């Protein structure tokens, strides 16, 4: 006879009865969580299991990246074992990490490397909130895959009035401790379907998550072609050009195009917007996996175009870099 699963949510622990969904049991405890259709469609009751893998049926229709991260829909979740659950935006504790490297990649973009001591789980391409000692917080994408050295790499672009980015560029010193949140976001590589073609389009420091995703895919033995299109308005937003060319020499299935979209710029790179060049070069995206990172307008336009060109909605992963207008 099966035991009744115990559910932990924050400070509360309670049982989930056999005839009720996890959502029902939360509501019975007067725990307010968002919900809508109660039939696994609207995804308003999206939650995450911190420990046990949720039942597969509670993950139907979710993006594979969210499934990998143990997200599920509470309204169709009938727990089979004890679970500790949380809301998607519920912030875990911040951990500390020290600056171990700062290096300019282009006049605008700095390579920041942090080292952490506390165990930390992430997928390359996810983002974290970085908090400086006075409490100012900004989100940055992780550009590397997890490895034994316990480091996180970021590409931080200096924005004209960016409080955080200018501080990183000008004042942040080696050895300084920053706080960082748990890794978030659903734009990352999931193993399996190793022969699927991948299309990655990024503008400016939108290359950061893509660089991590490519490293992840290649490390996990992705066999299908991987096409990266990196673009910028001017030369200050292009970087890692040599590294990416070397990568394309080392891996036959990796292809790289750098482009410049601004007028009257003399460069050896392809002229035009990265997304226009990418989408014009491929007739059909049916069966492709598509990653779009960087300028929000580029991401939204390309998302629609990639879908219209045949990519399935479930196979399009995006990370739009929204910039706070006033004091970014």
């Amino acid at each position, binding site marked *: 006879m099966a035991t009744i699963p115990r559910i932990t949510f924050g400070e509360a622990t309670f049982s989930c009865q056999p005839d009720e969904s996890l959502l029902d049991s939360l509501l019975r405890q007067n725990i307010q969580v968002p919900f809508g*259709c*109660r*039939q696994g*469609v*609207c*995804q308003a009751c999206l939650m995450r299991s911190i420990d046990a893998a949720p039942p597969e049926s509670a993950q*139907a*229709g979710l993006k594979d990246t969210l499934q990998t991260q143990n997200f599920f829909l509470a309204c169709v979740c009938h727990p089979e074992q004890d679970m500790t659950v949380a809301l998607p935006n519920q912030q875990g504790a911040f951990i500390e990490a020290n600056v171990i490297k700062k290096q300019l990649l282009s006049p605008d973009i700095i390579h920041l490397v942090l080292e952490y001591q506390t165990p930390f789980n992430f997928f390359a391409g996810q983002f974290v909130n970085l908090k400086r000692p006075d409490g100012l917080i900004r989100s940055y994408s992780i550009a590397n895959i997890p490895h034994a050295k316990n480091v996180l790499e970021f590409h931080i672009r200096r924005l004209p009035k960016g409080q955080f980015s200018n501080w990183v560029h000008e004042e942040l010193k080696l050895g300084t401790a920053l706080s960082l949140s748990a890794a978030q976001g659903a734009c990352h590589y999931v193993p399996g379907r190793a022969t699927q073609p991948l299309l990655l389009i990024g503008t400016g420091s939108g290359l950061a998550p893509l660089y991590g995703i490519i490293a992840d895919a290649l490390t996990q033995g992705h066999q299908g072609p991987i096409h990266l299109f990196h673009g910028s308005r001017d030369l200050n937003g292009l970087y890692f050009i040599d590294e990416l060319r070397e990568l394309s020499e080392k891996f036959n299935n990796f292809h790289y195009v750098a482009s410049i979209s601004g007028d009257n710029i003399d460069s050896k790179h392809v002229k035009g917007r990265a997304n226009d060049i990418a989408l014009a070069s491929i007739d059909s995206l049916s069966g492709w996996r598509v990653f779009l990172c960087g300028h929000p307008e580029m991401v939204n336009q390309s*998302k*629609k175009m990639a*879908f*219209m060109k045949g990519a*399935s*909605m479930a196979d399009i992963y995006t990370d739009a870099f929204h910039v706070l207008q006033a004091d970014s």
Partner: protein
Amino acid sequence: MSNSPETTSSQSLYEQLGGEAAVNAAVDIFYRKVLSDYRINRFFDNSDMEKQAAKQKAFLTMAFGGPNNYSGQDMRTAHARFVKMGLDNSHFDAVMENLCATLSELNVPQELIDQVSAIAETTRNDILGK
């Protein structure tokens, strides 16, 4: 999707169509048709595509005779702002046309398309706020 003409009548429409897998196969095709249809795409533009696809999936599940708890009142509330934008019978007809074309493309037999069509038709007055 079922191509077999000998599907037994004891199966529900949803089962004959192929259940959730059939809805998944249909949703991208249907949504693509709607977005490229100049008569109606202004009602579908500028929305979160992921959420929009989830809604289309709910609609298709309902029209396929699958599990749903669509209420007429919800449909009215959700479409009220589009009615203000001029949503009328011609737009509803266009959506129906795209729905049937999607099913044809997936080789669904005509008699099943007619059944799907009849279910979708029952939402007309609620969607148009009549």
